[in-house]
């Protein structure tokens, strides 16, 4: 495969990081190609920040290697790596102006003054901060500070840009706007980017590829839609979005479709294709709430349905989430889009039929 894939810009090879007895990162391998925006997504304490700090050089791996553009940098200190980071707190230098902040990295490279000035001007233009060049960081708003931090970390044209919780210090409304703006800037520069976040929406909006981390290990790597539609474990399915998981037993494995049974359902659970397990094995069957239909009359299909009572309704404006309690006691979530303003909607304690297609369910083995 020498001619096929271009060599990755950033490669993590079997990296483990231990702090005393504790392993923060366990045998992680990743390969990130040039120009990609890659997100490390996970809850607090999952090791994502430690992994990022190893990429930037603030931590050294206990085992394994980190390669940037084919060169092993595991032992190279942060000030000698062609990697720049945008910190969660932005970490702007409070005693310097916006201009001086952006110029700081270039001055360390001892570039001629004219070149530094041109580069700083270009960077400030890129992030639309030219008119604020003479201001100090404490005279800027949160969003403006973030732009300066971004300009500063891009000024040295790093091979890899690292973003640590890029929207962590912004309020919710500003986030949505800055997410897209950030992606536009990063893509226009064409830099390879690795971001760390605990916010799945942020990761899915910004990244080309997402990896889910849990307890120091990588659970799944894929595009946002792959991870959402085809989760490979209960943890991933539950971490990204909401999901209904039925505990099921494999009844019949076929090539076109396979059947399972669940104590929560009276009918048969049917999934597309085969199952990688023997008959009688216990697995989970996941169905996303927006893939479940609701109706007052019994559906025509003989499988993948249930009758329940509306237990709770969360009206969210654009859509509503119905919590339907099945006779077994299990609560299933179903989402409907509120298309019609005057629609006679289902209400509390109504009997309702739930049904979904075989292609909507995903079998989870672990």
């Amino acid at each position, binding site marked *: 495969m020498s001619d096929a894939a271009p060599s990755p810009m950033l490669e993590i090879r079997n990296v483990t990081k231990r702090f005393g007895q504790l392993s923060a990162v366990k045998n992680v391998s990743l390969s990130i190609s040039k120009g990609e925006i890659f997100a490390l997504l996970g809850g607090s304490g999952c090791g994502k920040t430690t992994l990022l700090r190893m990429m930037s050089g603030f931590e050294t791996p206990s085992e394994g290697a980190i390669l940037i553009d084919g060169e092993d940098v595991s032992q190279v200190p942060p*000030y000698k790596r062609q990697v720049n980071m945008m910190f969660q707190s932005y970490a702007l*230098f409070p005693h310097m102006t916006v201009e001086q902040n952006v110029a700081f990295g270039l001055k360390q490279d001892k570039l001629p003054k004219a070149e530094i000035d041109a580069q700083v001007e270009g960077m400030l233009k890129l992030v639309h901060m030219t008119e604020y060049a003479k201001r100090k960081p404490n005279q800027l708003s949160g969003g403006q500070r973030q732009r300066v931090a971004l300009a500063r970390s891009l000024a040295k044209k790093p091979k890899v840009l690292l973003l640590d919780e890029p929207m962590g210090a912004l309020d919710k409304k500003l986030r949505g706007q800055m997410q897209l703006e950030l992606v536009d800037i990063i893509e226009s520069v064409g830099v390879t980017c690795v971001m760390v976040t605990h916010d799945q929406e942020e990761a899915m909006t910004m990244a080309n590829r997402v990896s889910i981390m849990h307890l120091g290990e990588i659970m799944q790597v894929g595009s946002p839609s792959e991870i959402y539609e085809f989760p490979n474990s209960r943890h991933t399915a539950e971490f990204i979005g909401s999901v209904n998981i039925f505990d099921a037993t494999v009844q019949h494995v076929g090539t076109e479709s396979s059947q399972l049974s669940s104590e929560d359902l009276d009918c048969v659970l049917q999934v597309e294709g085969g199952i990688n397990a023997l008959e009688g094995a216990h697995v989970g069957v996941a169905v996303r709430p927006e893939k479940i239909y609701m109706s007052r009359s019994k559906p025509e299909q003989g499988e993948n349905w249930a009758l329940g009572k509306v237990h709770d309704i969360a009206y969210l404006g654009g859509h509503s989430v119905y919590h339907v309690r099945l006779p077994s006691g299990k609560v299933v979530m179903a989402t409907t889009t509120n298309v019609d303003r005057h629609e006679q909607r289902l209400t509390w304690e109504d009997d309702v039929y739930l049904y979904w297609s075989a292609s909507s369910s995903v079998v989870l083995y672990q």
Partner: protein
Amino acid sequence: MQTGKLSTWSKSFLSVGFFFLYAPILILVIFSFNKSDLVTVWAGFSFKWYGELFRDPQMLGAAWISLKIAVLAASAAVVLGTMASIVMVRMGDFKGKTAFTSMITAPLVMPEVITGLSLLLLFVAMGQSLGWPGERGMLTIWIAHVTFCTAFVAVVITSRLQELDDSIEEAAQDLGAPPWKVFFLVTLPIIAPALMSGWLLAFTLSLDDLVIASFVSGPGSTTLPMAVFSSVRMGISPQINALATLVILAATIAVFIAWWFAQRSLKSTTVVGDD
């Protein structure tokens, strides 16, 4: 804080408190402009004693020595205090950190008499066994003052360093500055106001120290507080009032400058007007 009218009770307590604290000082300042030779009898306004003071070579000599010692001691204390603070705040956990931290700040609570006596014993023992310091004088006073001033400076700078976000220094490293350059280009400018107020604090502490200086001074190195104290024992001359007034003025200016620097550093690091 609530602003409103104080009750009569609170007001009278406040005035009693202020009177207790500041009346003696006020009286001293007033009497420094006294024409009379007697300290306690008012005989009209004059600058006579200020003139006398500036013609007294002994007092002026002592003041000059004190000033030199204070400047040198404050400067050395700031350098050592900064180093100690960085070790305490930035070096992470090391073996004996607790012992180190408490030993740095021990001189804060140590009675001056004990500090002075122990330093005197040390200097005598060293003089006998090593031949250095040969005799006590400005050098030994300077060393003694650096010792206790460092403790105060370390406290001031430590608290400033603890507030400083680690990631600012990391960002500088990330942008290509090796650690020593990060210190001079980023850390030092940010904590500069704390260094300044630490220096001023050390300067005033050194300037008015009597006890420790008395233990470790030698012939020909009389500091201003020592000169004042010995002249007062002969009987209070109105000249001392004039001198004291000048010292109060100098201390007030120093405190004001220190406060101004502290305010400025507070303003430049706190976030104003977030959106």
